[in-house]
């Protein structure tokens, strides 16, 4: 088994739970790509459950740390369920590219949406936080974009207060129309919020 094959096997072992499980259960891989001699097989089995799985879990923890920076409000709302959800999401889905943390965070929001956000978030309005942060990510990942979204209240303030873990953060204030504009990959995303001057309390 050459170095290229060794590294390919390790990369899959570190990033794919199903690959690890299949190897542990059957002694071979799903696609037959890992041809081990007996000594290698014995050695790999001895480290699979403990060392390889620990390393794989530490990778997921590291990814989650980055995703928390990208989706601070959403992650704060998920509270104690965050780790389990992220672990399920990341178990078989590796990251990719220089902007992989942004992509990872965006893919996590897609995963949450598929899981049906109303089951995950306790309060209906919390879905707005995810939509707001997801739009930021999509804008940062675009070379050019114009995105306009409306929100029932002051969404940016709410997301910021959640990110700071303020216990009394509430979704309130005047309605907002939020605009994201990016004219090229070398320019940063421009952002505006529009709201009515007068609004009944």
């Amino acid at each position, binding site marked *: *088994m*050459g*170095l*290229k094959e*060794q*590294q*390919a096997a*390790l*990369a*899959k072992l*570190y*990033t794919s739970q199903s690959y690890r499980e299949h190897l542990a259960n059957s002694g071979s891989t799903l696609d037959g790509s890992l041809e*081990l001699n007996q*000594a*290698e097989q014995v*050695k*790999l089995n001895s*480290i699979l459950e403990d*060392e*390889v799985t*620990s*390393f794989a879990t*530490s*990778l997921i923890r*590291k*990814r989650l*740390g980055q995703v928390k920076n990208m989706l601070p409000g959403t992650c704060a709302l998920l509270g104690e369920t965050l780790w389990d959800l992220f672990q399920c999401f990341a178990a078989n889905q*590796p*990251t*990719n*590219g*220089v*902007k*992989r943390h942004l992509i990872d965070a965006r893919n996590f929001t897609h995963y949450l949406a598929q899981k049906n956000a109303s089951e995950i978030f306790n309060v209906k309005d919390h879905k707005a936080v995810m939509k707001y942060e997801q739009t930021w990510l999509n804008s940062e990942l675009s070379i050019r974009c114009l995105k306009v979204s409306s929100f029932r209240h002051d969404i940016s303030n709410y997301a910021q207060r959640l990110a700071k873990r303020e216990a009394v953060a509430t979704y309130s204030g005047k309605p907002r129309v939020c605009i994201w504009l990016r004219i090229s*990959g*070398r*320019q*940063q995303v421009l952002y505006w919020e529009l709201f009515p001057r007068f609004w009944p309390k």
Partner: protein
Amino acid sequence: MAQTTITPALESLPVLGVGMGYRDPLRKEILQYPEGIDFLEITADNFLQSPNTRWMFLDDLRSRYTLIPHGLNLSLGSAEGLNREYLSELTELVQRVNPPWWSEHIAFTKAEGVEIGHLSPLPFNRASIDAFCDNVCEAQDRIETPLILENITYTVDLPWHEMEENKFLGELLDRTGCGLLLDVTNLFINSQNHGYDPVEFLKTIPPERIIQLHFVGGMMKDGKWIDNHSQNTQDDIFQLIDSVLQYAPVKGVILERDANFPPFTTITDELKRARDLGRKHERWA
């Protein structure tokens, strides 16, 4: 100690002193504390594919400090070769910063289209050394600035090892001609997790190869030490820094704190402690 030829390029590198890894959350504090920071290390990946404002900020930082680019994802250990697009972007960054040296890790981060997302240890074998040397040659063809290589931690005992870690490191440095960015914390952690004496390990590395140091606190988790870059530096690690500075003509040391930031005075205290150790061994003023 292994006998080796040190390239003139390494000998003539300037002494930079004591610095820290630039981190955005500490931007204000770093810029307000110029007298205690001689140079900064920037994580190259945090500036690649960035908008112009980010590059302008980099120019501003460069006007204040010597900057050392530190790569994370070149994957010099990959048997499949380098990602040319990434290398081009890195080249652009290094040329813009114009540092005395730049650094990458002794690791691989991708294989067969799968990005691992972290620095993964190489099997300590000859095939790894061959692949690594080929990749370093290609990188040096594009980036003429001297490259130094950083040791990483490893917790997985791979089935394909053919030699000890110190033999692997020594041969790799010898064949590439690169200097070593010795992560003292990683050396400490590996010595604890794999049961060897870090000072004895140190003495197998030619002293002139050790150009720069990294340090930060380690952490025990489930009975093993890990390097999550989020702890204050322990006394044991400072003692090891002392041993390294006594042994090798180190040109610079970087505090590599990434998370769980303490009050900035804690960081400056650690920088001062590293500075004092360097002064004790007359490595810098």
